[in-house]
């Protein structure tokens, strides 16, 4: 058990190091952007009719701590994020980023995870079936669906659904809440309203995730099915579901769990665009808002960091989960036999 604890701790530190690296990269990129926060904010102000001098900018820079060296600013940013969970203030909007993101980020994370779960709950049975059956119609139709998922990017699908529903039902199905619930406090009615609208983004986000997952599961199962131990089991008289569940499906499970993190990454990629089309007001759309409207580097950095952090967390969890359920990995950690 001690060794397992060691394993968990090493993995944990690796995850932290990855996050630090990511935060450094994100911070550097945000830094490379021309004009810093002070200039940006003041030019935004001057746009509204004020006069700005160079001294104003310098004073604002001092106030925001922008005159300090780059590495120190990064360290204080990371320190605040890691120890206080505080992303600081948004550059243009001048409100706390935590407040701005808070619930929105959780909702979008929830949407993405649900989409992922949906994708795998379709892809695993369908993939196993298509890899193990010799029915050409089934195989071809599953192949067709997965190619369609690749060629029809989510944003196109979202667009089509939205346009069609506007034309057919007169309701564009956009937004996560109806008008009357948009700013209401959480209540049972609001949850119900949310559910009645959230299925669409979940479906759209899950669409190409399902296509990808289907291909992965199918390829893995096809690989395992051809192996000798499956033939041996078959020779012993096992067949059908019993055989599949007991041997190849178990082996194929490990790489699938391993790939979850990257699948989440893919879903996150789709999120902002789908969010934009469906006019969801969660972090994906907020990111576009932050970028396109106001060039808000702090907010953008915080969102990218949060997205990456959830992927790193998922990777960490799947690593631990794999060690627990896969005896091969378990043994290699515990040493011996």
């Amino acid at each position, binding site marked *: 058990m001690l060794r397992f604890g060691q394993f968990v701790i090493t993995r944990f530190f690796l995850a932290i*190091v*990855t996050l630090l*690296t*990511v935060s450094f*990269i*994100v911070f550097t*990129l*945000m830094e490379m*952007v*021309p004009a810093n926060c002070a200039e940006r904010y003041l030019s935004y102000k001057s746009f509204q009719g004020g006069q700005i001098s160079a001294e104003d900018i310098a004073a604002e820079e001092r106030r925001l701590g922008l005159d300090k060296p780059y590495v120190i600013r990064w360290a204080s940013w990371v320190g605040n994020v890691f120890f206080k969970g505080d992303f600081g203030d948004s550059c243009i909007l001048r409100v706390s980023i935590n407040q701005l993101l808070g619930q929105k980020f959780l909702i979008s994370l929830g949407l993405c995870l649900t989409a992922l779960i949906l994708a795998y709950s379709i892809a695993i049975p369908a993939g196993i079936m298509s890899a193990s059956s010799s029915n050409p119609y089934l195989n071809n139709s599953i192949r067709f669906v997965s*190619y369609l998922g*690749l*060629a*029809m*990017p989510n*944003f*196109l699908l979202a*667009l089509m659904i939205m*346009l*069609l529903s*506007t*034309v057919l039902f007169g309701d*564009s199905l956009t937004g996560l809440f109806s008008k009357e619930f948009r700013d209401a406090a959480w209540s049972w009615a609001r949850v119900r309203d949310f559910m009645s609208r959230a299925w669409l983004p979940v479906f759209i986000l899950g669409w190409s995730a399902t296509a990808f997952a289907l291909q992965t599961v199918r390829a893995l199962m*096809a*690989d395992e099915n*051809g192996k000798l131990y499956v033939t041996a089991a078959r020779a012993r008289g096992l067949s059908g579901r019993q055989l599949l569940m007991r041997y190849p499906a178990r082996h194929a499970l490990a790489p699938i769990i391993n790939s979850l*993190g*990257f699948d989440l*990454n893919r879903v*996150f*990629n*789709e*999120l*902002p*665009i789908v969010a*934009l*089309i469906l006019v969801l007001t969660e972090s*994906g759309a907020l*990111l*576009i808002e932050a*970028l*396109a409207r106001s*060039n808000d*580097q702090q907010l*953008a*950095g915080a*969102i*990218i960091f949060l*997205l*990456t952090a959830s*992927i*790193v967390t998922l*990777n960490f969890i799947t690593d631990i989960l794999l060690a627990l359920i896969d005896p091969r990995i378990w043994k290699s950690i515990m040493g011996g036999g």
Partner: protein
Amino acid sequence: MAETASTALSDEAALAEQKRKEAYFSAGQLQLIWARFKKNRSAMVGGIVLLALVSMGVFAPFLSPYDPTIAGRDKTYQNGAPQIPYFWDQNGFSVRPFIYSYSRTRSAASNFRWVTSVDKDKRRYLELFVSGWEYHVIDLSLDLPGDFFDIDIQFLKSTTHLFGVTEGQIHLFGTDSPGKDIFSRTLHAIYTSLAVGTIGVFIAFVLALVIGGLSGYYGGWIDAVLQMITDAIRTVPAIPLFMALAAFLPDEWSAELRFLFISIILGLIGWPTLARRVRTHLLTERSQDYVLAAQLCGASPGHVIRRHLLPSFTSYIIVDLVISFPYMVLSETALSFIGLGLKDPVNSLGVMLQNVTKADVLLNYQWYFIPVIFFMALVLAFVFVGDGLRDAADPYASTKK
């Protein structure tokens, strides 16, 4: 007599068989891949479609009858429906395909939409090789800030276009609201999207070769550090990061400069997957017996890399490049679609897709969706060819199944 004939025949067959085997055993890697690729029907179809689309993109100025920019707009046919050429109608058959003349009116009765009435008795015939707007067959010019950086490669000035029509203009895919020809725009969009993809893939490829190569060749702590950075970048969701970078392109930049930067950004973010593959190839190949054999024979490291390692995986790298191409195109499209990538004077598939976001389009101007079909065909063709190449490049693919 009959016996000798049959032995001669079998001799011949054996000889042919031997020749076939010899050809197989002495074939280069690319030949083997091509032989396997040919057998894959869906990949071949994808390849043909891809070839057609790429040549449509490359020869876009020649194939498109009108200037895809605002300069080439047809003021008399804004938001016009596609004009399909016919060979015959109730007035009889014609060897030369023709389209009809039309007249357009708009009034309060039609909610100020243009109403087109077709005059079926007045035919306009298609012509080949008509002269039209001026273009360069080879045009790689780029207008960057500062005269020094301008790339100005233009050859073969020409005004000949594949087809046109005797009088007025022909719009195979209709026109958009300013009156630009959607057919011409689509062809140019394919070119732009492919060009962005090519530059992006090229940059990603160079970075991947250098970083993956260093990592795979030296191993040890260099490998560990580089791998950590690669993995860290791989966990960052690419599109939000693209957006973050693309949003900061100043608005006053020219379309070409934007185009170049979008490509560079795509390349800068796309390398980690490729780099990992290069490293894995290098690491697995490095420990192969043939490398050891070469080393035992006294070959220098440079010789081993050049003569043994590089040829062993160039084909795989090519395959990886093809596979990563559609993602570049998709990313460009997505970026332009949300308005952070290329912008309107440039014709790219993403810019074209931007036009279809209104319900008005679905109800009244369905031909705006034609570029969407081309976009899907392009991505699908790349995916099919990539999959086919990957299967063909894997020497164990046939034994596995």
